[in-house]
Structures are given as structure tokens and as C-alpha cells.
């Protein structure tokens, strides 16, 4: 855990990815990744909350004594999510109608508290903001990837209803595979676990191969 921006970003996006490395936030991951659009929406909403909560926790880290830090953080995050929920309902009502369900789900996302505990409470404000952003984007990427795979195998579409989330100009993202009924299993929870399992295995295999190549290069070539 360093304050180096590059390594914080790399941690968040890949090495310590919330879903693929820390295996945190399984509840929202399994619940909303039935389509790429849902995954993207949940990821972006979580990113926003994660950045703000990391900054706030970092700001108060010297004031809070370690014995009561967990309840303080829980109150802080719950308040934050509720305020965001109400503000979006009031002033971004159209977006809220699409994302509303996800906002409330963020409260149960243990990744938020996890980052407060593991990073923000020990780090400066800027580093915490960067960490929140990187972790959030890593989470968004993971959710979108799982969502796209499940959506493609399960209903034969990609980014269905993306224009509801991002506006009509993004309608070009929406694709449909003609004449494919879809494998229902992939939309249901078991499909989520299966896709996550394969992606985890893939990531592990990739890292093993990279590590093996690194050792080969490091050891001196036989004479």
C-alpha cells in the first residue's frame, strides 16, 4: 500500500480489484450483473459514493479513535448514500428512475467500508480520492464484463437498454444476436457464479503465465 498514484491505480484496476482479487461486494455483483447496462450503472454509482466516502474518512482519520471507527464509518457511509439517493431523486429524476434501485443497494456494498478500513483511514486525502476512483472503476469494469458475458449468453444481446442509462446517443452500443433464444441459466444466479469463476480462473492463469515468464527472463541463460 503506497502513496504512489500509479500503483494505487494499478491496485484498484487489476492487482487488488474489488471483485476479481478481493472477492468483496459479491451481493451487488451477483444481483445486478444480468446485463452490461446494469453492471455499468451500478459500477458508476458505486464509484461516486466510494470517492466521496474515501475523502471524508481520510479527512476525519485523526479525530476518530480506533475503537469506535467502525460505527462512525457505517453512520458516515449510510448518511452519504441516503443524501445522494434523495438528491438524485430530486434533481436528476430521470437518471434516478434508472439507477434508483442501485443507489439503495450501495449501502450493503462492503467494498465501501472495506476501502475506508484498508486505505482511507491510513492515507492522505488525495491518495484516498485516487484509490476510491481506481477501485470504483475496477469494480465498474468487473461488473460490466460479467454483465456483458451473462447478457450475451443468457439473452443474446449486448448493452440492451443502454440508451435508458446513458442517453439516446449511446443507442449504437445496443446489439442483438438474431435467432438466439438465450440460455436462461446464465441470467439466473448460478450463471453469475459460473461466469465469475471462469473469469477468476482466467485472471489467475494470466498472472501465472506472466510470473513464469518473469522468472525465465530473470534467471541467467545456460551457457
Amino acid at each position, binding site marked *: 500500500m503506497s502513496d504512489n498514484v500509479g500503483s494505487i491505480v494499478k491496485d484498484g484496476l487489476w492487482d487488488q480489484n474489488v471483485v476479481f482479487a478481493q472477492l468483496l461486494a459479491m451481493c451487488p455483483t451477483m444481483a445486478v450483473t*444480468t446485463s452490461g447496462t446494469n453492471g455499468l450503472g451500478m459500477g458508476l454509482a458505486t464509484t461516486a459514493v466510494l470517492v466521496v466516502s474515501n475523502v471524508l474518512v481520510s479527512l476525519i482519520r*485523526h*479525530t476518530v479513535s480506533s475503537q*469506535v471507527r467502525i460505527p*462512525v464509518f457505517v*453512520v458516515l457511509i449510510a448518511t452519504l448514500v441516503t*443524501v445522494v439517493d434523495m438528491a438524485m431523486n*430530486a434533481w436528476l429524476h430521470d437518471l434516478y428512475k434508472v439507477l434508483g434501485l442501485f443507489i439503495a443497494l450501495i449501502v450493503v456494498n462492503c467494498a465501501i467500508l472495506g476501502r475506508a478500513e484498508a486505505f482511507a483511514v491510513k492515507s492522505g486525502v488525495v491518495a484516498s480520492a485516487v484509490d476510491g476512483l481506481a477501485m470504483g472503476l475496477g469494480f465498474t469494469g468487473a461488473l460490466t464484463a460479467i454483465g456483458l458475458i451473462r447478457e450475451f449468453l443468457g439473452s443474446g444481446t449486448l448493452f440492451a437498454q443502454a440508451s435508458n442509462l446513458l442517453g439516446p446517443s449511446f443507442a449504437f452500443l445496443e446489439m442483438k444476436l438474431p435467432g438466439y433464444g438465450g440460455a436462461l441459466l446464465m*441470467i439466473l444466479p448460478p450463471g453469475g457464479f459460473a461466469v465469475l469463476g471462469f473469469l477468476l480462473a482466467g485472471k489467475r492463469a494470466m498472472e501465472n503465465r506472466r510470473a513464469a515468464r518473469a522468472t525465465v527472463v530473470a534467471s541467467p541463460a545456460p551457457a
Partner: protein
Amino acid sequence: MNIEAVREKIGYQPLLLGVFALLASGALAWASSATGDAIAAAEAKDLRDSLSEVLPQGMADNDFLKDTVDLDRGGKTVTIYRARQGGTVMAALFKVAERGYAGDIQVLMAVDADGRTLGVRVLKHSETPGLGDKIEVRKDNWVLGFDGKSLADPGPEKWAVKKDSGVFDQFAGATITPRAVVKAVKGGLEFYAAHRAEILGGKS
């Protein structure tokens, strides 16, 4: 005394918790009062939009949001919005709810004076995304199949999904959801038939 020493004192911790609880309640109270009006306005606009969606264009020349009658249905109050033309009630709009696969499905429907369905929309549901959510009009036009149906057409025993030998389609992988919507709409029509005189008669 520096902050590290104070922080470890037993009295500091409840005080800190108290202060944070107070700050949090303050923030929530402020946010609630600051957003209350805007949320109410946005919800009223939503209601107007969805009411206009189930009601065919040009059906009403009055402000039907204000022309309401409250009726009792099984212990719950149902608000009925009346669309008039030249003073005559042309259609009644109201919400019905039925338990779906996961929680209540809220349905808004418009019925004309003769008891024929003008339009049906699902307002709120928590059905499985990708399976049961085809009842939303922006995902599937299934719900348009209710337009023009009445208790006489199709007959009472045909008010069911095809699996139950009715006339309405079900979705692959989801039967409970459309079954609930069919039941809700049928219940709404029966409710209208039972209270037709009150709905059509009363002046606002």
C-alpha cells in the same frame, strides 16, 4: 494535550459517536427538507406522465389530476382520476396491485365508461431482470395486449395466461409475473364494474 492522548480516553469515544450521530441526523434532516419539494414535484410529474400514457390522446379536456374520487377496496383507499369531456366522464384511471414473483406489482390502468380497458402500464415491480421485466412497456409490448379488452371480451374464464388456458401470453421462464398482471387487470375491471355508478355519477 495532543489529540493522540485525548483519543484514547474512555469519555472521548461516546462523545465522538454522539457528535457523529448528531451530524448525520442534521445532514439527513437538511437533505430531506431541501429535496422534499423537488421530489414531490418530480413524482407529481411522473404521475401526470404515466396517466397521460394510459389515456388515449384527446380523451380529456379537464385536469384529471384534480378530478378524483376516493373509493374503498378491501380496506385500502383507491384514488380514481376521472377524465372528462364536456363534463361527461369518459374514462377512469386508477392503480391496482397484485403480488408477483418478488413483491407487489403496481399497475396503472385506464377504463372507459363502458368498462373496456383503454391502457395498462406497470408502474413499479421487482421482478427478475431479463425474465419478468417484459411487463414494462419499454422492454416488451406485451402489456399493450390488454388494450380494448373487457370482462365480456374475452369471457371471465379466458382472463388468464395461455398456460392456464386463457388468451394472454406468458414469457419463457416467467409465468408467475404475467399471471399476476392479468389478475390485477381483471380485478381492476371488476372493481370498476362494482363501482361504476359512483365513478361516473359524482361531480367533482
